[in-house]
């Protein structure tokens, strides 16, 4: 299985995302923002960072990068896409996921090992977890407050599309403690915390994040 990881100008966590893909047993493929081609990959990760310096709004300019055109089309067709942190912001700006991310309510940059509860295992990226499983992965952002109107939030809850929720206190003012959501089909998932930083004991607070990547591998290859 080949998993593309897009590098935008200002992406930071693309190398870690490729490493997580490799540790999960898949082949990472570096994709370039200015290349309007997905090079036949089986899934795509939009990594964390500060694409285009977070100018205008986080993810607002990356959304119009050439690579996003085939990506949005493929995502509508069922291609597994995972957006982490800035990648989540790009997915919201692209309208592949509803809502938006705004500045943390306490106005400080957050960098913590964050407890989460996996609420939906019906997505390509979380099928390997148990429903209700508590995991710990790093969270690091300044604009991680998830917002949407009440109707959208009610819809997400009713359809089981809240994928991960913050546990042990809300770190950034996200409405209803939402840390990550999916599209209706469950192939597109976005979250603010960083599973790709929790894939090895040496470098992460846990290896809880690896299951995001092995779940996708299993969904695509069936192993």
């Amino acid at each position, binding site marked *: 299985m080949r998993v593309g990881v897009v590098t935008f100008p200002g992406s930071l966590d693309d190398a870690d995302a490729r490493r997580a893909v490799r540790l999960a047993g898949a082949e990472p493929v570096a994709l370039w923002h200015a290349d309007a081609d997905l090079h036949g990959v089986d899934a795509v990760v939009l990594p964390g960072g500060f694409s285009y310096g977070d100018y205008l709004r986080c993810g*607002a300019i990356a959304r119009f990068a050439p690579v996003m055109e085939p990506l949005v089309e493929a995502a509508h067709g069922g291609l597994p896409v995972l957006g982490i942190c800035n990648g989540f912001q790009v997915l*919201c700006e692209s309208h592949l996921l*509803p809502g*938006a991310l*705004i500045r943390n309510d306490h106005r400080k940059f957050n960098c913590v090992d964050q407890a989460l509860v996996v609420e939906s295992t019906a997505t390509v990226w979380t099928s390997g977890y148990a429903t209700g499983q508590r995991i710990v992965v790093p969270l690091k952002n300044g604009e991680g407050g998830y*917002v949407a109107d009440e109707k959208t939030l009610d819809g997400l809850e009713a359809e089981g599309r809240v994928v991960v929720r913050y546990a042990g206190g809300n770190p950034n003012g996200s409405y209803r403690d939402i840390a990550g959501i999916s599209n209706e089909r469950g192939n597109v998932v976005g979250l603010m915390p960083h599973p790709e930083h929790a894939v090895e004991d040496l470098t992460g607070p846990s290896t809880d994040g690896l299951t995001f990547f092995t779940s996708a591998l299993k969904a695509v290859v069936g192993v």
Partner: protein
Amino acid sequence: MARVVVDVMLKPEILDPQGKAVAQALPRLGYDGIAAVRQGKRFELDVVGEITEERLAQIRGAAETLLSNPVIEDFTVRVEDAI
């Protein structure tokens, strides 16, 4: 040339931490009596040629697509004097 101004503001129901920080700083400087502050963005677009309804519609399209995120923000478009 003419200047078109696009003002973008967070929707009223969306929390504005930056505006809140400004509101908290004002009384410390002695500027009392300000109940709330909302912070927005102002874009000045210098438009080549005459401003027609068609051009304005284009600019509204740009405001809706790129300059603002309609999920969390509202915008207004207005023409300033020729420059």
